[in-house]
């Protein structure tokens, strides 16, 4: 029998759902095996497992496409509510694929940097095991349908992500890791309380079963306004608001972002890439499940608007702060905060159906690819110069031309030039907003222009003539940044930049298991006009103008209006610094919870 014949029952037959279990078990088994193999073995085992997992994720996506309906696997044959059910739908399959792909790419890139010879046995073993832990947590999050199981998965994710922050073990990194852990723990306590209330209200933790019951209550509302049903519905929505608040803290949606810049800015570059590209998306995905799958009708509530306003705030403030950062890695970290904001525009716009959901999922992919590339490139700059402070990196483009080029490619994907993923996101969100809600489109366009501004700032620094020899302005002697290390970032950046050129039929994967989505036709519609001169220049022109202005600003001298802009920037940075105070962030957490409760109650 040939290989396709052997695999047939799993790929398009009755056994397709059995693929879900190994996707969950593989990383956990490898994680348990790794310490027995020692540091060298752990690296090899992780890389091999990741490639195997990528194959499994591809097989699961193929099986899902063949079945054209969600795959459901009840562990041990026990059905919900007592058993735990794994379910794979279109968005989950996309996330599984993305996670396996980005982790494999980052793993291959980091294979040399995180070896015994480079960082020692202890850090090597820790890094590869933590990578497996992140993967196990994420896969659990994507496949889970049980609120408590999802809690365990998100804790596995957090406990793997926190030590990644402090692999170097310096005081700064340890402080950042502790701050991250404690804020994440506050979030998980709120989430767990919400899950417990759900169990008490409905006697089940299965998202599908709760959604059915809530849907029933909403239906009954018009027919028979029984007071008991109404109170159960209200209490359920408050429980969702609790869980949502906890997850917002873990996703670092501004203004709950106090932990993200130091954590992502201080971690080793491959770890930052994983944290920024994947880990924060895990808790976002759970928010997606809660508000879109568990709550029957998001349109009837004001909470979508609240989340959207926070997202818009994150887009504007995050990009503005990125523009002002001195360190390249912090710049990239603030850009992550802004890009997370785009995800939250889903909630006010999802009411219109398809395009907004497609846009949010494309944004997850596009940002993950571009941001992983950017962090790996920042790591190259750091390795070559020994620091990443932009004021002392004048002319780094001459020393690292390839790095600069790939950095610009990844940046353009974030700015959203056609045919990048960012362009798809903006256009699809624009369609979902419609003609009336022009303010969402304004936020999207401003965000793109601000991204272009910080990209132009990096370019201006890179092209300036190098300063006369001072420590840190020239590459360190003997620093090892070969051109081979550009392979993975280049691949990731090109992936983000050319996302729109994928055959639109591939996007149909996102629709499986979700009603009223037409991703394939929506994407085909957007891309049909994207590369016509009129559309191309109307989106590229403003970006070029802003980029030119920023470069002139940086090259030009020191006039009064330039000092004025600098002073305004410092003012804004002061306010943002206040938001990152622990007590302020804690109070904001409670306020956002109260605001969500007010928004879900009639």
């Amino acid at each position: 029998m040939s290989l396709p014949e052997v695999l047939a029952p799993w790929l398009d037959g009755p056994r397709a759902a059995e693929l879900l279990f190994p996707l969950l078990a593989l990383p956990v088994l490898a994680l348990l095996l790794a310490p027995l193999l020692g540091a060298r073995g752990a690296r090899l085992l992780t890389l091999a497992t990741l490639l195997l997992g990528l194959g499994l994720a591809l097989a699961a996506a193929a099986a899902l496409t063949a079945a054209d309906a969600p795959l459901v696997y009840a562990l041990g044959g026990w059905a919900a509510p007592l058993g735990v059910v794994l379910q794979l739908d279109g968005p989950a399959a996309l996330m599984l694929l993305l996670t396996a792909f980005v982790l494999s790419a980052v793993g291959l890139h980091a294979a040399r940097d995180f070896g015994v010879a480079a960082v020692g046995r202890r850090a090597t073993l820790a890094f590869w095991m933590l990578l497996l832990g992140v993967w196990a947590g994420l896969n659990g999050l994507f496949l889970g349908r049980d609120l408590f199981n999802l809690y365990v998965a998100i804790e596995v994710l957090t406990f793997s992500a926190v030590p990644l922050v402090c692999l170097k073990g310096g005081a700064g990194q340890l402080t950042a890791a502790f701050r991250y852990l404690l804020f994440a723990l506050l979030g998980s306590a709120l989430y767990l309380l919400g899950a417990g209330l759900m169990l008490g209200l409905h006697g089940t933790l299965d998202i599908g079963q709760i959604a059915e019951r809530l849907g029933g209550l909403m239906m009954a509302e018009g027919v028979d306004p029984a007071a008991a049903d109404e109170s159960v519905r209200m209490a359920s929505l408050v429980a969702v608001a609790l869980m949502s608040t906890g997850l917002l803290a873990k996703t670092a949606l501004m203004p709950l972002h106090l932990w993200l810049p130091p954590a992502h800015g201080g971690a080793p570059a491959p770890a930052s890439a994983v944290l920024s590209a994947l880990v924060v998306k895990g808790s976002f995905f759970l928010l997606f499940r809660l508000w879109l799958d568990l709550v029957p009708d998001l349109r009837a509530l004001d909470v979508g608007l609240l989340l959207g306003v926070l997202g818009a705030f994150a887009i504007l403030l995050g990009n503005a702060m990125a523009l002002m950062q001195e360190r390249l890695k912090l710049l990239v970290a603030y850009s992550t905060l802004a890009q997370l904001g785009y995800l939250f525009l889903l909630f006010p716009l999802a009411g219109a159906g398809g395009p907004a959901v497609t846009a949010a999922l494309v944004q997850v992919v596009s940002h993950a690819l571009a941001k992983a590339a950017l962090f790996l490139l920042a790591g190259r700059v750091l390795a070559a110069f020994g620091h990443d402070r932009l004021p002392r990196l004048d002319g780094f483009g001459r020393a690292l031309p390839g790095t600069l080029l790939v950095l610009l490619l990844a940046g353009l994907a974030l700015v959203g030039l056609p045919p990048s993923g960012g362009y798809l996101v903006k256009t699809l969100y624009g369609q979902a907003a419609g003609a009336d809600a022009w303010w969402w489109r304004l936020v999207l366009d401003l965000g793109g222009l601000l991204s272009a501004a910080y990209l132009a700032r990096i370019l201006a620094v890179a092209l300036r003539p190098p300063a006369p020899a001072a420590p840190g302005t020239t590459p360190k002697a003997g620093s090892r940044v070969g051109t081979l290390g550009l392979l993975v970032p280049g691949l990731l950046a090109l992936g983000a930049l050319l996302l729109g050129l994928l055959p639109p039929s591939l996007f149909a994967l996102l629709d499986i298991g979700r009603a009223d989505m037409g991703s394939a036709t929506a994407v085909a519609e957007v891309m049909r006009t994207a590369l016509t001169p009129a559309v191309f220049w109307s989106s590229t022109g403003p970006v070029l103008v802003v980029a030119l202005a920023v470069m002139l600003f940086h090259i030009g001298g020191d006039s009064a209006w330039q000092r004025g802009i600098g002073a305004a920037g410092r003012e804004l940075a002061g306010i943002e610094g206040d938001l990152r105070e622990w007590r302020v962030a804690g109070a904001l957490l409670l306020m956002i919870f109260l605001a969500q409760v007010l928004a879900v109650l009639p």
Partner: protein
Amino acid sequence: MTLSVTEAQLYGLCGAGLIGIGLYGAILGPSALRRLLAFNLISSGVFIVFGAIARRGGLAGGAASDPVPQALVITGLVVAFAATALAVALLIRLAALQPKTARSSPLAELAKRRYDAFDPWGGGKA
């Protein structure tokens, strides 16, 4: 007028009170260790709420306590324990790196005695 409160309600109120105290301490606590302990208070409060839910008989619905929330609490305890252990390990390491602030703190003592000897994978350079 008599105020009648069932056991489950009393437990639920206790849990809510603990969560409130814990949130206060976690947000306004003066030191990292105090905030961590406050998180443990919140967790205990949440577990007590789970207990109250079990007593109300969610899934089983009868007179007996529902075993499902109890099983969840056991898992939750393990997770909270692991979280606390990780956080304390970070604090001990931090105390070892900051000799100035740490001179008088119990964490620093712990760091001096334990951390140097603690190397789970033996002989590796950091």
